[in-house]
């Protein structure tokens, strides 16, 4: 295996006080071949603005992930008091004050569409910031690298440890690292399952061995994926497995922000001797700190690359060096292709966030968000689903009258049982009655009671006189009215007559 040489050999300085990393980018374009084993990457710890942002984002996201299942929300007796819960037994999704039925899965679809559009917008504006800061793969890999750093030390120590023979010390370090990794992995899988069960109950049952079997299965699956994806696969997930890096190429343009090495300022690069002039040479002292820091194993000085996740750790690494050698920061910076071109043309760089592309994404995102909000706010306490019988499509009675049958499903979303009246409107001369209902009930009066939080289904027979069957299809409306509140819900449907056009 081609293990990278440790930094100290050969011990050269890139500049006064800056050690040169003898490192080659694992995934640089000119070393890339098909068919080769993964070369491990040993990212060097950096300090700086973007590292701090990454810590903050990671902390916030992990906190949300682990704390949310334990939030409580009182919904009254007989209902779960977990604020966010996918209740598979009752087929309900609870989100604080919202309770969604499986019939309303379009809200989830809308949420996914809005999420995709938000990703489009952010990618068009800031490049792959999702990948670099918020993606679970990045967050957990970062966490695993932090554990690695804590137990085995920084880059050079880790490389040395890999090369060392298997001493007791090495075994101890490796065992503790993998133990902590596995604990994190179990906690990751465990927390996921908590969104599907009552969290405090499940935590207790999990350890006493009383939790549902499927709970253990899913904790096991997610433990495995977390451990292997964040511990071993890491950057390969982004480079080989994830489709998003390919798709987002369609969302960025020359004004999108991406991590950029300012070639014009940096080149020609080379080690710098203390006291010598900076004239006629670039600011890059070729110390390779940006390469050593990169978790994706690339050299950002080669330009934009497929692997780059826009995380900015190379910016922090370079800024640290620039401070030491007393040159201005920002040799590597979040910048755009447009600005590189503008500088070359002698114009001042600028960021333009209001572009046709970004405005289009924003408008569509706004529209989807508004539509969902309106749909959510206007949810009726009764929902109605009318399914017309298709087999047979219509029935001709002995006297020539035409009858259609409809299955009317009434959903009661309130907490109290309700009495509702089902009507069919828009068909002159129609006689409406309940199939299989009391034979002595007068036609047209279909009264049913629907229990709280339940669906009641009733089959309704609608008969129209032969003379009224003028069109193959007649529009009609099924209404359901809550007798107590008078609130009614309607559903447009059609009456099939079998008449020729």
């Amino acid at each position, binding site marked *: 295996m081609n293990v990278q040489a440790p930094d100290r050999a050969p011990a050269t300085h890139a500049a006064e006080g800056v050690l040169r990393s003898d490192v080659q980018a694992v995934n640089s374009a000119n070393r890339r071949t098909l068919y080769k084993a993964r070369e491990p990457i040993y990212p060097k710890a950096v300090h700086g603005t973007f590292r701090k942002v990454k810590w903050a984002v990671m902390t916030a996201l992990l906190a949300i992930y682990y704390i949310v299942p334990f939030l409580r929300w009182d919904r009254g007796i007989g209902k779960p008091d977990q604020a966010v819960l996918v209740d598979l037994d009752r087929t309900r999704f609870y989100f604080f004050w919202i309770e969604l039925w499986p019939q309303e899965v379009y809200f989830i679809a809308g949420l996914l569409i809005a999420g995709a559009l938000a990703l489009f917008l952010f990618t068009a504006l800031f490049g792959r910031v999702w990948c670099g800061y918020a993606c679970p793969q990045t967050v957990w890999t970062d966490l695993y690298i932090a554990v690695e750093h804590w137990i085995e030390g920084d880059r050079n120590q880790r490389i040395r440890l890999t090369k060392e023979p298997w001493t007791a010390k090495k075994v101890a370090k490796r065992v503790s690292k993998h133990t902590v990794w596995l604990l994190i992995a179990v906690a990751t899988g465990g927390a996921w399952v908590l969104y599907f069960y009552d969290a405090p109950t499940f935590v207790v049952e999990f350890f006493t061995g009383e939790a549902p079997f499927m709970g253990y299965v899913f904790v096991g699956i997610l433990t495995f994926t977390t451990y292997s994806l964040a511990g071993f696969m890491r950057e390969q997930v982004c480079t080989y497995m994830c489709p998003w890096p390919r798709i987002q190429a369609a969302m960025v343009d020359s004004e999108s922000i991406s991590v950029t090495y300012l070639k014009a300022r940096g080149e020609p690069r080379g080690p710098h001797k203390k006291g010598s002039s900076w004239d006629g040479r670039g600011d890059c002292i070729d110390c390779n700190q940006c390469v050593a820091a990169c978790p994706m194993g690339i050299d950002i000085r080669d330009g934009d690359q497929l692997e780059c996740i826009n995380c900015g750790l190379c910016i922090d690494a370079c800024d640290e060096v620039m401070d030491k050698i007393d040159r201005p920061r920002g040799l590597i910076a979040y910048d755009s292709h447009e600005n590189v071109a503008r500088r070359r043309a002698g114009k001042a760089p600028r960021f333009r966030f209001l572009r046709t592309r970004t405005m289009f994404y924003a408008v569509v995102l706004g529209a989807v968000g508004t539509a969902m909000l309106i749909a959510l706010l206007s949810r009726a306490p009764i929902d109605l689903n009318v399914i017309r019988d298709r087999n*047979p499509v219509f029935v001709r*009675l*002995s*006297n020539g009258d035409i*009858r259609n049958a409809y299955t009317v499903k009434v959903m009661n979303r309130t907490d109290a049982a309700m009495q509702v009246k089902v009507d069919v409107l828009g068909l002159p001369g129609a006689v409406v009655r309940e199939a*299989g209902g009391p034979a002595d009930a007068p036609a047209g009066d279909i009264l049913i009671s629907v229990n709280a939080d339940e669906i009641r289904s009733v089959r309704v027979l609608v008969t129209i006189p032969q003379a009224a069957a003028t069109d193959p299809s007649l529009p009609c409306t099924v209404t359901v009215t809550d007798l107590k509140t008078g609130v009614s819900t309607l559903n447009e449907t059609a009456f099939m007559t079998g008449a020729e056009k």
Partner: protein
Amino acid sequence: MSKNREKDDVSGVETTGHEWDGIRELDNPLPRWWLYIFYATVVWSIGYWVVMPAWPLVNDYTRGVLGHSQRLDVDAAIASLKEGRSALGEKLAKATPQEIEADPELQQAALAWGRSAFGDNCATCHGGGGGGNVGYPNLNDDIWLWGGTLDDIRHTLKVGIRSTHPETRLSAMPAYGRDELLEPGQIRDLAEYVLNLSGKSTDAEAVARAAPLFVDNCAACHGEDGKGLREFGSPNLTDADWLYGGDKDTIIETITNARNGVMPTWEGRLDAPTINALAVYVHSLGGGE
């Protein structure tokens, strides 16, 4: 072949040494993940041979240490289904269809049970929704040759129509043409007469000629007014519904050869709760009396 192996200049990879119409192939290694999965499946298959039924022998097969058998699984599943249904089945068997219909819980259960039994046994002829077919009555409408009450439907289910059951519902319309009971001209006149019963005739003379023929040959079963009689299962000739078709040619065909459709008996084939459930289900389709 392998003596033809050579190094490709562009990729630096050896070729396989084969050549087809001037096309050579690079001998790239298999992707590792693929190879590992392949090895894993090989190992898996060996374990599978041990624990699962695998190799055919002359009169038998290797059964595997788990003793797995899909036939036994199906038997067990059916047994457990029967057991799970037994309480409900007992209730459905004991109750009259009227009692079932009056009890909302039992009615829902009967409808579900009946719907599935209908799909398995009845839908072949009557259609998935009981919509019928030419020669097979629509069970959704208000036309019942042998009666549409719960008891009538249950009885029809039990004994069938012109079936092998000793108490089957039975009637037979003569084949007036085939058996030369009537002349072809008389049959044509009778067809006009039948059309006239629902006001569709265009030949008043033929109708007049056929009036005595109808009284002599048809009225005994179909009634003087042609409205049919339930005790014979004879259809109403005056309504809008035609089991085999209401145009003149079809009516002539019916009179000439007769129809005498058959429904099998279900007693003995279906158990008591299923027949009760089917009666309630068919009754609920919309035409129940």
